[in-house]
């Protein structure tokens, strides 16, 4: 269970999170929606302890993330898989080594046979061919890099998966593939997931629950149906804006096809 209570964070004079409450129950997939630059990734990084809140409590499995000792925090992080916005793959290592680093159990990490089979399994789960294992990140497309990032995040069999903009920078086709992957991993692995995105369609496809981060506050939380039915002007404005973007995107795709 992930729980943020009354969390605030500011960078110099800019308030990014203002008394945020955010809750994710075990087995749930929650999409955190919001415009670009609103602080969604900052909130996600609080969950894994990469950023410490100025005020409030961030707890995962009942542990206060900000007050954990180094070893305990490292231990907690082995239960959380984090998919970075641009993949954040180690460019001096091939795909195999990148995914192998995701195996957080040291004994298993040292077992070459296990690592070999786990890397293959993770590549299969993200729909990549085993031959990709020998490639370097610079040889991969944007979509493949994101999938390798997901493979690395699931290699350690985490309980939680945190996705930071998994479809940003991808064309609609690849975005769909990644959304499908998030959905399938949720079904196959049964993990608890938080998906940070500004893509409304993707969020509605993968999430059990949606939260809208707007001007440093959680403006609305609910099931996709509840969000659609919301009378809140900010929610309606955000949903309409995304619909317009979707129309522009589909028009430009049609145009490029001609």
């Amino acid at each position, binding site marked *: 269970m992930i729980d943020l209570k009354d969390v605030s964070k500011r960078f110099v004079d800019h308030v990014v999170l203002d008394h945020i409450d955010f809750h994710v129950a075990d087995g749930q997939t929650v999409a955190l929606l919001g415009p670009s630059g609103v602080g969604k990734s900052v909130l996600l990084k609080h969950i894994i302890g990469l950023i410490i809140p100025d005020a409030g409590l961030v707890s995962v499995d009942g542990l206060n993330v900000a007050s954990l000792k*180094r070893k305990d925090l490292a231990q907690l*992080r082995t239960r959380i898989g*984090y998919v970075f916005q*641009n993949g954040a793959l180690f460019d001096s290592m091939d795909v195999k080594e990148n995914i192998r*680093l995701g195996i*957080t159990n040291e004994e298993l990490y040292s077992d070459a046979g296990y690592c070999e089979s786990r890397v293959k399994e993770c590549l299969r789960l993200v729909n990549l061919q085993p031959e990709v294992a020998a490639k370097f990140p610079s040889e991969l497309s944007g979509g493949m890099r994101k999938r390798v990032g997901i493979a*690395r995040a699931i290699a350690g069999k985490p309980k939680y998966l945190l996705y930071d903009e998994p479809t940003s920078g991808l064309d609609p086709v690849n975005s769909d593939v990644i959304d499908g992957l998030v959905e399938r991993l949720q079904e196959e692995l049964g993990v608890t997931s938080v998906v940070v995105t500004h893509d409304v369609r993707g969020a509605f496809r993968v999430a059990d629950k949606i939260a809208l981060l707007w001007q440093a506050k959680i403006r609305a939380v609910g099931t996709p149906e509840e969000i659609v039915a919301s009378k809140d002007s900010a929610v309606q404005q955000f949903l309409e804006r995304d619909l317009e973007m979707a129309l522009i995107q589909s028009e430009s795709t049609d145009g490029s096809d001609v």
Partner: protein
Amino acid sequence: METAGGTGLDLRRVAGRWSLRTAGHAGRFAYFLLDMVRSLAEWRIWVPRTFEQAILVGYGSIFIVLLIAGFAGAVTSLQTGYQFSNQFPKYIAGGIITESVILELGPVLTGLILAGRIGARYAAELGTMRVTEQIDALESLGRSPMSHLLLPRCLAGMLVIPALVMFANATGFGVGWFAAKSSLGITNADFIYGARFFFRSFDLWYSVIKSFFFASAVVLIPCYIGYNTQQGAEGVGRATTDAVVSASIAILLLDVVLTQILLTGTQ
């Protein structure tokens, strides 16, 4: 009056900001070193990576280090000939060349060139890893950037740089001897006599001690600056430049301090 008051206020503000920033860096650098010491316990991780880095840095730097040491030895020899010919016995050239290379030119020139080569490399590597979230990714996997990235780089530098300085000393001495023979017409016996006459075994220790301190400046400062890089590609460029400049200044300062402490006290 207003302008003078305003300027005074500005200066106080600038001095205040500079002091705060310096104190902030000092605190973060101390914590950085402490964190590194604590990570020594994770030796299974950093030992193999240290050897990889040592081989990478050692092989990659040896050519430029020997080249510069060779030229330094030759130039010292030629200048000694220019300044002292016909005034002193020729064997003195052996002493001057040997002592100049071992006490100063070998460690300082090697330190400065490696601040550019290794320091820039470390700062750019770590800076790029920071701005592309690779360091965050490592942390998110429950792995320590200290034992995976920083400790291997720093220890490799501290192992390899003193060794490179010794090679530089030997090369500078050898080339200086050859140049002295060619340009000053000094005999091997005179050169060796002069070198041995002025040589004290402590000189070599002094060179080793200096090179160890210079190695620390060459690796620790760039690693700290690279690790704390911010603001994308521009930040990486700035970090790389800052790392080389800061490491070079640190080497020159250490040179003065160590000379004062180690050589003045032994006279």
